[in-house]
């Protein structure tokens, strides 16, 4: 899956308010790395319930960056984790990397 993030939702939310747009992007850029770090930590420690919790949180950012396919992947992955499975782990990590790289460009 090579879905690319974009700012169409953020633009819709901001309208002409560039101050909000910049501040909002800054919040995402601050919050996402912490969430990714927490996710990696939970995965390393095989804490599936906690991993599901952080996936739940991260999936909102996928939807904010208009990544519908990635959002659906996260929903499925969250369910897997709650059932004790990790099938979509590598695919999810790859989306995290795409998002991380994208956030460096905006």
């Amino acid at each position, binding site marked *: 899956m090579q879905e690319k993030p974009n700012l169409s939702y953020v633009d819709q*939310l*901001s309208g002409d*308010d560039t101050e909000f747009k910049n501040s909002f992007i800054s919040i*995402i850029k601050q919050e996402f790395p912490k969430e990714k770090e927490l996710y990696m930590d939970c995965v390393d420690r095989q804490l599936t319930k906690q991993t599901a919790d952080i996936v739940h*949180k991260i999936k909102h950012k996928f939807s*904010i960056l208009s990544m519908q396919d990635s959002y659906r992947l996260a929903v499925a992955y969250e369910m897997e984790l709650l059932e004790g499975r990790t099938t979509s782990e590598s695919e999810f990590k790859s989306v995290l990397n795409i998002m991380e790289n994208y956030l460096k460009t905006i």
Partner: protein
Amino acid sequence: MNCIIIDDEATARAVVRQLCSKTPALNVIDEFENAIDAIKFLNHQDIDVVFLDIHMPGFTGVDFVQTLKNPPKIILTTSDTDFGIAAYEYEAIVDYLVKPITPERFEKSVQKIINAKNSQQKNVKPEGSGPSGSEDLYINIDRRLIKLKLEEILIIEAKGDYIDIKTIKEQFRVHTTLKKIKEKLPEKLFLQIHRSFIINFTKIIDIEDNSVLIEKNVIPISRSNRPELMRRLNLL
């Protein structure tokens, strides 16, 4: 309408705050990253609307709703599209918004709150405005609506998150604020004479320097409220 936002995710709080800022009817008073802090805040602040994230670690949005005895109107925010049915188990919950929240959907939600509040106001019977023309006030005690005759109310006293309503016959403790009940009382009968007391001033027996006597109760008059009390009296 004053509102607060509760969400453990800063990005989500920023979305709701921005949407509120575009809605003149809403005034964001504060935001919280956990429900416990919000409950502490609500213990001393009247709020009309809460935007509440359901999925929070530890103390969830549902825990929050269940904890509040007299919750304000609540709009749930959730990333789960299948939360709809559960959302309406609680009377206070007016709507639920699936993230990412669009401005159009948000507007609909705000309209639902406005409609809910309007309908609530129509159901409340303030001074003599009921179809019967009687001057009654209904209070909610343990899910029972008790009718009080306004003319029989003597004193209303603030007691933290509650008020004590003393009538000619008995006394009731109600979970509300002095400010809220004041809005339901007719000015021709009632007057706030202290930050903790509203009195039925037709029941005054006498007035001394800084207090009034109603039945056997001595009620203090604050300096700021004294001129209004004196103005209302039919002084010789």
